[in-house]
């Protein structure tokens, strides 16, 4: 017998103190209830005939005192928290990883897999031995500890209520590494995995995750079947040259072994856009590209269901979400002696409002109006700080770049080619024929620190980007009229890309993010935190790092990200074939450790004796109460 509660001295003091109080209370004369009787003489006759009764009453009083002292003893002993020797050392340390990935939302078993998993864990909790301890964790795109390592059944069952699968894939390697960290240094550790078996490899950058020698691996399989179709890809983008229109890519996949008739619906800003019926072969997929769409301002949603309107086993992948980049009008000032090529390029996008100015009135106009971009065609005028400028063959004292030569002639580059193109730069996207551009003469400029040539020939830069007086600039180092660039598709694309780049619009805009991963959402400069409202209405705060809010979406749907005065919507999708493939898979081993079924604790019920002591005390009190009220003892 071991004691984990109060010390013997404390218990003795407590017992003596309270026991003395009990004895004093018994010694004190009982204030009896007065019962009037009409004729006491008759009672005297009764009492004279029952002398043994008085003795019995006296004994009963002593017995009652002893009973009270016994009750007190039981309760004081309970405070010592006695336990049977040995059991405390034989306890196991269980780390239970409960699969919380999207596939656990499948409804192939009554109540769903999540309920089945919860029940399995609850059963394990109740089968814990008296000295067993358990740590509960949910594993999905990340690992979340639901409870500390504890032997408290109530707190474990309470923690289990927080388990809820999310719309993410599974970071199995991260989860198993978490389990390894949790059992480090503990004896009799066991790792228990509860899930549907679709965990993927337990391998990450540090290699395979292996359990230490002697650490048993238990597995509780959840799930029965899997009939599921889901949206495996959903993307939308605006056309670069006509941003009012967009195209959509949807891929639908059948994850079961039977042919499925499905109905695919597309919604733009919550309004139905198109409904299509299609047949999916067993384990087959179909892609559908909807071109030249219009009508959506910001959000798109795809929904899939069986043609007979029944639901499949996993609703989480039956919907996919996408957003289109917000459109903004741009004001452009063209400072030129007249250049039809530039004028034409600016007319391509109806969201561009262009004005023209001469060299003489350009400074005045730039001071009065706020322009998103000033295009200086062969001329340079001083621009207010922060003004973004597209220079076409700049020259003069206000040029952002200095000529790399003693004279302009010395800096001439004859027949340069676009030999080095930084295709990853936003300015150079979608310029498919830029490499074939012929240039007659270009000027070699000297770049300053921070300037970057995104296109260059062997002799010198052809397109330069950089920053001056707080504003971005783009410089083309040749005269358009001495090249065939204006005749190519790349020319208007370059103008549009310049405006987008100046505005911060990313041509590589992602119409949706994948749940469970870190999302980097561009936000306006100057803010350090963003407020995020998830699809379930929950609000959170996300840090802003390098101009992007970094958040992790664990639910599919639309998220509102507010940073500063601007709000935008981003979409999160579960597009994870591993999760959509809901048919349970066998889980036999973890990198060499064989998985077995879990076993109950050595002692099926709790063996904390204080409970039994208190129960005994309670039973005695109940018996005394019954005997009193049933007039057995009085």
């Amino acid at each position, binding site marked *: 017998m071991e004691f984990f509660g109060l010390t013997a001295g404390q218990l003795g003091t407590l017992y003596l103190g309270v026991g003395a109080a009990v004895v004093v209370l018994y010694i004190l004369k*009982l204030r*009896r*209830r*007065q*019962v*009037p*009787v*009409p*004729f*006491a*003489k*008759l*009672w*005297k*006759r*009764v*009492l004279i*005939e*029952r002398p043994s*009764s008085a003795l019995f*009453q006296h004994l*009963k009083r002593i017995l009652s005192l002893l009973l009270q002292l016994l009750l007190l003893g039981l309760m004081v002993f309970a405070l010592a928290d006695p336990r049977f020797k040995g059991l405390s050392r034989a306890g196991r340390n269980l780390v239970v990883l409960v699969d919380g990935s999207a596939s656990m939302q499948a409804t192939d078993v009554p109540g769903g897999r999540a309920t089945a998993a919860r029940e399995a864990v609850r059963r394990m909790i109740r089968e814990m031995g008296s000295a067993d301890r358990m740590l509960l964790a949910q594993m999905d795109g990340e690992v979340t500890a639901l409870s500390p390592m504890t032997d408290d059944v109530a707190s474990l069952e309470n923690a289990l209520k927080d388990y809820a699968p999310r719309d993410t894939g599974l970071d199995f390697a991260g989860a198993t590494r978490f389990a390894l960290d949790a059992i480090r240094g503990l004896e009799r550790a066991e790792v228990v995995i509860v899930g549907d078996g679709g965990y993927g490899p337990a391998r990450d950058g540090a290699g395979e995750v292996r359990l230490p020698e002697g650490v048993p691996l238990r597995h509780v399989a959840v799930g029965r079947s899997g009939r599921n179709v889901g949206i495996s890809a959903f993307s939308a983008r605006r056309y670069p040259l006509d941003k009012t229109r967009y195209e959509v890519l949807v891929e639908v996949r059948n994850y079961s072994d039977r042919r499925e008739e499905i109905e695919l619906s597309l919604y733009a800003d919550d309004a139905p856009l198109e409904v299509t019926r299609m047949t999916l072969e067993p384990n087959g997929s179909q892609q559908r590209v909807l071109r030249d769409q219009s009508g959506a301002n910001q959000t798109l949603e795809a929904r899939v269901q069986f043609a007979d309107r029944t639901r499949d086993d996993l609703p989480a992948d039956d919907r996919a979400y996408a957003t289109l980049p917000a459109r903004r009008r741009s004001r452009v000032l063209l400072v030129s002696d007249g250049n039809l090529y530039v004028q034409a390029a600016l007319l391509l996008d109806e969201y561009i409002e262009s004005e023209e100015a001469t060299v003489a009135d350009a400074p005045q106009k730039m001071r009065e109006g706020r322009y998103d971009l000033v295009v200086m065609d062969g001329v340079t005028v001083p621009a207010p700080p922060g003004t973004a400028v597209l220079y076409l063959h700049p020259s003069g004292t206000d040029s952002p770049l200095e000529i790399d030569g003693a004279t302009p002639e010395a800096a001439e580059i004859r027949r340069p080619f676009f030999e080095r193109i930084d295709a990853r730069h936003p300015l150079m996207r979608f310029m498919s024929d830029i490499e074939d551009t012929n240039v007659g003469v270009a000027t070699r400029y000297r770049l300053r620190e921070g300037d970057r040539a995104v296109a260059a020939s062997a002799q010198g830069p052809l397109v330069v980007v950089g920053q001056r007086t707080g504003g971005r600039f783009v410089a083309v180092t040749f005269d358009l009229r001495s090249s065939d660039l204006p005749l190519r598709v790349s020319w208007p694309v370059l103008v549009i890309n310049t405006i987008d780049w100046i505005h911060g619009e990313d041509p590589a805009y992602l119409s949706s993010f994948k749940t469970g991963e870190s999302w980097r959402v561009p936000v306006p400069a100057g803010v350090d935190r963003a407020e995020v409202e998830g699809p379930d209405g929950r609000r959170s705060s996300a840090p802003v790092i390098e101009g992007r809010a970094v958040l992790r979406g664990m639910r599919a749907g639309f998220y509102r990200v507010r940073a500063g005065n601007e709000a935008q919507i981003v979409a999160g999708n579960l597009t994870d074939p591993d999760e959509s493939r809901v048919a349970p898979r066998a889980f036999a081993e973890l990198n060499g450790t064989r998985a077995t079924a879990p076993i109950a604790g050595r002692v099926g019920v709790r063996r904390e004796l204080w409970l039994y002591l208190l129960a005994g005390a309670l039973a005695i009190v109940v018996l005394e109460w019954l005997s*009193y009220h049933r*007039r057995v003892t*009085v």
Partner: protein
Amino acid sequence: MGLTDFFRKSLAPPAPKEDIFDDEFQRKLDYLAVISRRLFAGRLRAERRTKKTGSGIEFADHRQYNAGDDLRYVDWKVYGRSERMLLKLYEEEEDLSIYVLLDCSESMAYGEPSKFDHARKLAAAMAYVGLANLDRVALLAVSTKVDKTLPSTRGKGRIFKIFDFLRSVRPKGETALADAARQFTTQQKRRGIAIIVTDLYDPEGFERGINAIRYRKYEPMVIHVVDPRESDPGARGDVTLVDVENGESREITLTDGMVKAYKEEHEKWRKEIDDFCKTRQVPYVAADITKPFEEQVLYLFRRLALVE
């Protein structure tokens, strides 16, 4: 209930107690008187014989002639046969005196409803029948002494005085029937029937009180007012039993067994009373207050042969 309501309720005067001698009760007495006449038809007379010998017309006995006796009452036929001068004695006919002794000790007020109200009703009924038969009826409230007396009266019309008297008496004090009986016999020279309405809870013993009446040539009749609920005080456990009359107390642990023993003792005590009365030819009736009043009164008439 608010505090104000509580005080209002607490300070409110107690509800007036119902008058036990209302018109309804009087009608009941009339009815009972008629029934009693029918029951004892042919035996009822306006007057009764007493054991007293005197100047009546019914022969009672002979006695030796003494000088000075009225020669008209000499039985000359006996003298002719035996030459003995004997005087004929006749039962003296006179109106009967009925004394109703009502026990007004504190024990009579025990319980709810109390024995006292029942006893007063019985006393009223006895008195009414007596008045209806043209007897002389006196009422006495007794405890350790005669507390209050309503002098002998006759005629049915006097029943209201009796009601008023019974309304005016209150139970208080202890019981000492013997002392009260002695005082009664000293005060009331005219002998007659003494109906004792009591619970017989006399610490000195019920026998002494009854004997005190018997020994002075009164005819005692005992109406023992009994409340069967008294044999169980209700409480259990460690209690102090307090005698309502003398305040004598005793601490006991009351159990079911003890209550059962008390009930047996109570029954035994009642049997002792019954036996005592039987052996001394004292009419005795136990009047259970839980039983209907009318039945009980008729039973009393029959049992006590009051109207015979």
